[in-house]
C-alpha cells in the first residue's frame, strides 16, 4: 500500500516537473521568437517612418527609469551600507581588511547592481507592461493596430524593449554610484576611514571588465524583463488572463534573470 502511494506520488511529481520544464521550454522558445521579431521589425522594409516611436520610448523610460529613481536610490543606500558594514567588521577578523574595495566592486558592480535594479524593474514595470499589453489585447487595440497595417511588435514591444533596456542600464549605474556613496557614509561613521582612501581602494579594484560585465548583465536582464512581460501580455486572450499574465511575467522574469545571471557569472569567472 505504502509502496503504491510512493509510486503514485513520484509519478505525480515527475509529470508535474516534466510539464513545468515543457512550459519553460515553450516560453523560452516564444521569447526567442519575440526577440527575433523585435530586432527584425527595426530593420525590415516597409516599417513606418512617420510613426513616432521616440515618444513611446520616452514614455517607457519615464515609467521604468525616472519614476524608479527614489526606490532604486533607497535600496542602493541600504544595500551598499549593509555590504560595507559586513565587510568592515568581518574582513579584518580574517586578515583581509584591505580588500574591502574589491569586495565592494564584486558585490555591487558585478552582481548586486544589475540584479537588484532588474528585480525593481520586474516588480514595477514588468507587471505594468504585461497588464498594459494584456488589456490592449482584451480591448482589441492590438487587433485594431493589425487592421491598420501596423505591426504591434513595432508599435508596442519595440519601444518597451528599448525603454526598459536603457532604463536598466541607467538605473544600474545609478544604483552602483549611490550604493558606493552610501557605503562611504557607513564606513566613515563606523571605522572613520578617510574618504580619499575609501575611494582609492574602490577605484583601484574597479577594472574595465567589471564595468563591461555589469553593463552586459543590465542589457541581458532588461531584455529578459521586456521580452517576458511582452510575451505574457501578448498571450492574453480574455480578461481573466490579465492578472495571470502579470504573475507569469514576474515569475518568468525572475527565473530567467537568475538563470542568465548564473550563466554570465560562469562565463566571466570560469571560462
Amino acid at each position, binding site marked *: 500500500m505504502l509502496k503504491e502511494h510512493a509510486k503514485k506520488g513520484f509519478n505525480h511529481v515527475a509529470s508535474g516537473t516534466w510539464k513545468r520544464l515543457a512550459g519553460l521550454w515553450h516560453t523560452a522558445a516564444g521569447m526567442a521568437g519575440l526577440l527575433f521579431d523585435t530586432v527584425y521589425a527595426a530593420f525590415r522594409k516597409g516599417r*513606418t517612418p*512617420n*510613426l513616432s516611436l521616440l515618444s513611446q520610448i520616452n514614455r517607457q523610460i519615464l515609467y521604468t527609469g525616472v519614476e524608479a529613481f527614489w526606490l532604486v536610490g533607497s535600496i542602493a543606500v541600504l544595500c551598499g551600507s549593509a555590504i560595507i558594514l559586513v565587510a568592515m567588521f568581518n574582513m579584518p577578523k580574517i586578515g583581509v581588511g584591505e580588500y574591502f574595495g574589491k569586495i565592494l566592486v564584486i558585490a555591487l558592480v558585478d552582481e548586486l547592481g544589475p540584479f537588484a535594479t532588474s528585480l525593481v524593474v520586474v516588480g514595477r514595470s514588468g507587471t505594468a507592461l504585461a497588464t498594459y499589453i494584456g488589456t490592449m489585447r482584451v480591448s482589441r487595440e492590438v*487587433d*485594431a493596430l493589425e*487592421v*491598420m497595417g501596423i*505591426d504591434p511588435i513595432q508599435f508596442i514591444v519595440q519601444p518597451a524593449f528599448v525603454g526598459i533596456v536603457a532604463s536598466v542600464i541607467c538605473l544600474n549605474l545609478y544604483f552602483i554610484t549611490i550604493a558606493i556613496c552610501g557605503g562611504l557614509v557607513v564606513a566613515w561613521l563606523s571605522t572613520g576611514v578617510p574618504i580619499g582612501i575609501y575611494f582609492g581602494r574602490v577605484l583601484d579594484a574597479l577594472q574595465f571588465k567589471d564595468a563591461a560585465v555589469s553593463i552586459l548583465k543590465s542589457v541581458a536582464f532588461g531584455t529578459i524583463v521586456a521580452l517576458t512581460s511582452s510575451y505574457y501580455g501578448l498571450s492574453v486572450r480574455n480578461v481573466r488572463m490579465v492578472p495571470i499574465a502579470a504573475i507569469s511575467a514576474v515569475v518568468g522574469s525572475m527565473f530567467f534573470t537568475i538563470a542568465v545571471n548564473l550563466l554570465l557569472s560562469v562565463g566571466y569567472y570560469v571560462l
Partner: protein
Amino acid sequence: MSFNLELRKVSFWRGENTILDGVDLTLPPGSVAVFGGRSGGGKSTLLELCAGLAKPHGGAVLWNGDDITDMSRYDLYGRRKSMGYVFQGHALIANHSAFDNIALPLKCGGEDLDSDDIEKRVRSLMHKLGIGRDIEKRFPEALSVAQLRCVAVARALINEPALLILDEPFSGVDPVTTSMIVGVLHGYWKRGGVSVLMASHSLGAWPEHSAQRFMLNNGRLEPATEAFAKIRNLRHNQRYEHYARQ
C-alpha cells in the same frame, strides 16, 4: 486602388460549436454587403475572417484573388493599409487622444505626409463627423459611446481605404449621430471603387437599394429575403419554436 474580397466555403468553429458553416461571399470593388443575424451568431467572427484577424478552419479567404490563410503577417500588414475597420467595441488606442487615434493610420500608412497635411486631413474628417475641437484632445475613456463611434469611423476612413469593414457601427448611437455616420460613409462610398461589408442588426441602415443584404443563420449566409420569408411563413407559435431551436 480596388479591393476584391471573396470567401469560399469558409467554416469556423469554437469547440463543439460551429460558428460558420461553408460561407460563400463575393464582394467586388464598389459593392456593398450588409448582413444581420442574431447576437452571438458569428457576425463579428465572419468580419474578422475577412480582415485576416482569424484563420478559417475550412475554406479560403481571398483578397484580390490571393488566399490570405497562408500569407505571412508582414504581407497582411502591407495589404491592410487599404482597409478600414470599425470594431464593435471601437478599439481605440487608450493612451492616444481622439486626434492621435484618427491620425494613426496616416502616420503609419507609408505615405510621406508632413504634420500639416496630416492635421488638415484629420480636421476635415472630424468636421464632417461632428467631432469638435473640444473632443480632439480627450482620451477614449472621456468620450461618450457616440463620440467613440465617430472617432472609430474617422480612423477607418482617414486612409481612404478600398475596403470598409464595419461591425455594428451604429449600436448604442442616437438617431442623429447614426444619420451623420451613415451620411459620411455613404458619401465616401459614392466616390466609387470602395467595397463595404457591414454587420448590423438594422439591415435598412444602408440607404442604397443596390446593397446585397444577408442574414447569418445557423452559420450560413442566406439572402435576407429568403431568411425573412422562412420566418414569415411560420405560424406565430412556430416562430417561438424556431427561435428557441436556434
